[in-house]
């Protein structure tokens, strides 16, 4: 099974690597943040697969930390991309 998990981890990583092309090409910064978000999900999957292969239970804690902070960068992006510091983009389309 170890080989299977290793192969699955490599496959997911390869998919994620292809997704990185979006970080390269953009065209908008939103696409880039999104691609990083994809990498986060794929990275957690690869981490768990590799973790099963090395049979270390604490890897679940690493995945938990990553999952908890997954949205943090995206929120920082949305906040920073807002034209005025106190405009909340989440409030924008309920006018």
């Amino acid at each position, binding site marked *: 099974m170890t080989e299977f998990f290793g192969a699955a981890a490599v496959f997911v990583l390869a998919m994620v690597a292809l997704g*990185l092309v979006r970080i*390269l090409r*953009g065209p908008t*910064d939103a696409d*880039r943040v999104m691609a990083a978000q994809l990498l986060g999900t794929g990275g957690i999957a690869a981490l768990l697969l590799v973790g099963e292969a090395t049979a270390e239970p604490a890897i679940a*804690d690493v995945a938990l*930390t990553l999952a*908890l902070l997954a949205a943090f*960068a995206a929120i920082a992006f949305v906040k*920073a991309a807002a034209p005025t510091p106190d405009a909340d983009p989440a409030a924008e389309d309920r006018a």
Partner: protein
Amino acid sequence: MIAADASVALLIVALGAWVVVARATFAAVTGFLAYGLLLTLVWVRLHGVDVALTEAAIGGGLTGALLIGAAARLRNTEAAARAERPGRLVRAVAALAALAVTAALAVCVLTLPVPAPSLAREVAANLAATEVGNPITGVLLAFRSMDTLLEAIVLLFALIGVWSVAPDGVWGGRPGPQHRLDPDGILAYIARVLPPIGIIVGMYVFWVGADHPGGKFQGATIIAAMWLLTVMAGLTDMPPISRRWLRIGLVAGPLAFIAIGLYGAVAAGAFLAYPAGFAKPLIVVIELALMPSLALVLALMLAGAPQRSDLR
């Protein structure tokens, strides 16, 4: 698994190259986020789960948010900077220098001594005396506790450095912009749902640190991130940095650490030595005292220099 290692290594090198050569700064920063995530994977592969946890919390959360915010604020300076791009000669020399550094390090890696020098045996032999089960915690808080004390103080100094760049008019004020609260917005929603879970996870990571991978840095980082989430959603505001509770909270951890160190000097004959049988309780006290200070210092460092002078 060599294939997995090699593919991760290649991916990291490709991302590192992207971070360095990308034209748009924002693209480079996003590349750096992905790079940090892959590093977490590498630490797992290198059997450093404690390090992976630190990288996941700091590299994945705090550094990413810090750099994304900075890149967005500096966006309008980018065009001017492109004109300053050095000429071909400088680039060639830089490439040569980089190659020389890489070659030298590669030679070092390939000629590392066999068998590898290691302190693992010494740590294993003496870990029982500290009564903690996680060797990393044993190193951080018993064998090399001076490093950890100085690190806590370095973090404080870095925060003072961040604060000291504030203009005189807003000294003592609140860091960062005021975020407007939209009570029904999705940002407020996640800032209400996530922090309770995050605080539990942070405390859990902190608490298991004595015997399993985890510890105060990782736990403090998670809790700091949760606090900043509520600030970004407008549910809470950053306190003015002149608040007394804030200043006390910042120095309480390092002061407790120093006090226990001095107690060791009296009771066990050396600064930061633990009297026999008291190692574990003292380590737990240090960690408990240090964790809130670390969470405060990390969150305030990310929030940056004071920007608003309202002291209400």
